């Protein structure tokens, strides 16, 4: 019993689970272990990992960011409106792509800032702030485009998301920076402290508001980077981009072991969570299971992860 408990509570549990799952299913699943398929899994894993990193930071701070999907959509149409070749504001201009990228990141950071300010200065619950934020910014994206997609984007932009090597490099860089920020910087320590107990942290001299606003801004920025990749993959800006991804984003983070109660989480854990979720998604698809079965299995696994989180948090050490 003690060994099982140790394994379940191990921080590498989800990684072991992913490896075991892959090894168990590979002989039976047509095409699962092929290089093409693994490349496909990697390409779809990268943007999800980036946006889940932001979610990890916010969850560690004791909050939750449900607005990330609307940030992705809003950034997608902002960038596309600037650089598309049909009637973009900077169509054909050599600076169109850099300007679009800058605008996308700015939009992400600003929405994050708004979320952070509402949570800290107005003392509103993160759940309601980001839920209403999701509704507002999704609606704004649809209204701005009149629910039309924007195509004809520059090839240089599409390559950022479409080319796995470029996307991989960006993801690794962001992952390393986020990991170091969490583990080696003072901000990282403050973030864990705030997640554990915001009141005690405040009394201890931690600039709680600044730390939490920083987490939401980082989440917004990372969602904007994910938007660059998702938009590049579809080669078009869409006001409903990533609309159905919220469960995957929060699910992957929680499966990794980041706590919904705050104060606990690691970038590496989120990587394991994203890896497991993507492997499961990919294999269930390859096994030709019906859409509803896949949704049921995914829902059950995420629920199981949430139960594990509750157990870890409540179980006596």
């Amino acid at each position, binding site marked *: 019993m003690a060994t099982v408990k140790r394994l379940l509570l191990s921080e590498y549990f989800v990684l072991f689970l992913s490896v075991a799952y892959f090894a*168990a*299913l590979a002989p*039976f*699943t*047509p*095409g699962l272990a*092929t290089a*093409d*398929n693994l490349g*496909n899994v990697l*390409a*779809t894993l990268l*943007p999800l990992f980036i946006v889940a990193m932001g979610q990890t930071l916010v969850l560690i701070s004791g909050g939750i960011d449900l607005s990330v999907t609307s940030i992705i959509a809003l950034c997608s149409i902002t960038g596309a409106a600037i650089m598309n070749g049909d009637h973009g504001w900077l169509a054909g201009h050599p600076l169109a792509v850099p300007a679009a990228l800058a605008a996308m990141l700015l939009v992400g950071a600003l929405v994050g800032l708004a979320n952070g300010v509402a949570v800290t200065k107005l003392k509103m619950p993160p759940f309601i702030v980001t839920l209403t934020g999701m509704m507002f910014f999704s609606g704004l994206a649809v209204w701005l485009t*009149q*629910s*039309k*997609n*924007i*195509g004809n984007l520059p090839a240089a932009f599409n390559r950022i998301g*479409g080319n796995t090597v470029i996307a991989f490099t960006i993801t690794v860089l962001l992952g390393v920076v986020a990991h170091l920020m969490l583990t080696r910087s003072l901000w990282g320590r403050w973030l*864990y*402290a705030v997640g*554990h*107990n915001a009141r005690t942290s405040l009394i201890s001299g931690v600039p709680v508001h600044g730390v939490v606003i920083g987490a939401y801004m980082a989440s917004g920025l990372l969602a904007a980077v994910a938007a660059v990749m*998702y938009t590049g*993959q*579809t*080669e*078009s800006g*869409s006001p*409903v*981009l*990533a*609309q*159905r*991804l919220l469960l995957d984003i929060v699910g992957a983070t929680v499966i990794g072991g980041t706590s919904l109660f705050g*104060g*606990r989480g690691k970038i590496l854990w989120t990587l394991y969570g994203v890896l497991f979720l993507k492997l499961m998604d*990919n294999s*269930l*698809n*390859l*096994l*030709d*299971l*019906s*859409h509803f*079965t896949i*949704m*049921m*299995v995914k*829902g*059950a*696994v995420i*629920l*199981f992860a949430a*139960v594990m989180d509750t157990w870890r*948090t409540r179980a*006596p*050490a």
Partner: protein
Amino acid sequence: MKNIQIESTSQHCERDGLLSRKARRPLQCLYWKMFCWCFAPIWMLAAGLLLLLPMGCKKAQNSGSGGSGEPQLTIGVSFETLQTGFWVASLDAFKAECAKRNIKMIQAIADGDANRQIEQVKNFITRKVDGIVLVPKDAKACIPIIKAANAANIPIVLFNRPPDKSDAKSVAVVADNFALTRETVKYMIGEARKTGKKHKAMVLIGDLGDINAIGRRDGFDAAVKEAPDVVEVVARVPTEWNQEKAQAGVVNAFQANPDISFIFTSSDFLLPSIVSALKATGKYKKVGEPGHVFLGGFDGDATAYQMLKDGYLDATGVQDVYFEVEACLQAILDARAGRPVPETITDAGFVIHQGNLKEKAPRMWGANVKQ
């Protein structure tokens, strides 16, 4: 840090005799057991599915060839959604047609997510399918998908929704939304003319980002333009394919023009909104009864079939799902055999109305859906 806190809290409790650890344990255990039992069916279902996966898969691998000795073809069918009856009926029609032709069909539903659809079609390509049928999320985001299939040299056919213009090569099987809507509305106008008076009309328009919705709107406009003596359009309700928006729009239109007596909806799935508004104003009357509001639609779903049978609906333009499905599979087979395939295959569809209901119903997909 947290653990230390928990330890110290429990020690504090024990010291103060508030709740001893021994006394707390059974209570925790009880909560835990209750929680586990509540979710037991979900765990069992998930565990069962995971256990059955390898078995199901082995079975799928074993059935690798057809009875005739020729290698069995595999076709990947990727749908953007299964949210309305039309798509569910279409997927069922694909399953039946594939079984009839001894083709193995693998399916993927993107749940409205364009990126997921790209991933799923790449999965098909990884599995080296012999052809791909795609219901794209939208006309632009499907272009990278078509390019990926082109690069893998796999024929790809778009079902019911055409792509935007690009250098990517595909075949699209689509209904002639314009002509079929015009025919349907012409029939309704013919019936309305028999009353000898001029009717005020309302039209429910779909999402104008969808080329099918534009075709239906233009078809309606073309038909009413030819009969200014019979119909005058007084309300155009934008629905964006949304039932709630349709409902609000219809109610508003009835308040502004209570004497509307001619209604056309760009999709049958919006009929319930119209019916509830008509019932609320006491105008839901059968065809031929005094005060009947002329009602027409497009798609041919199960609601429309029931309303036709009950005598409330005048006509609907039916997309011939069975023709479209057959054409998709035939296009893939032709492309594989090197035969020329046109870029667009048009489904002329048919108008079903009170006069030809019995004759046409077997071909109406909505009539074959179990309610």
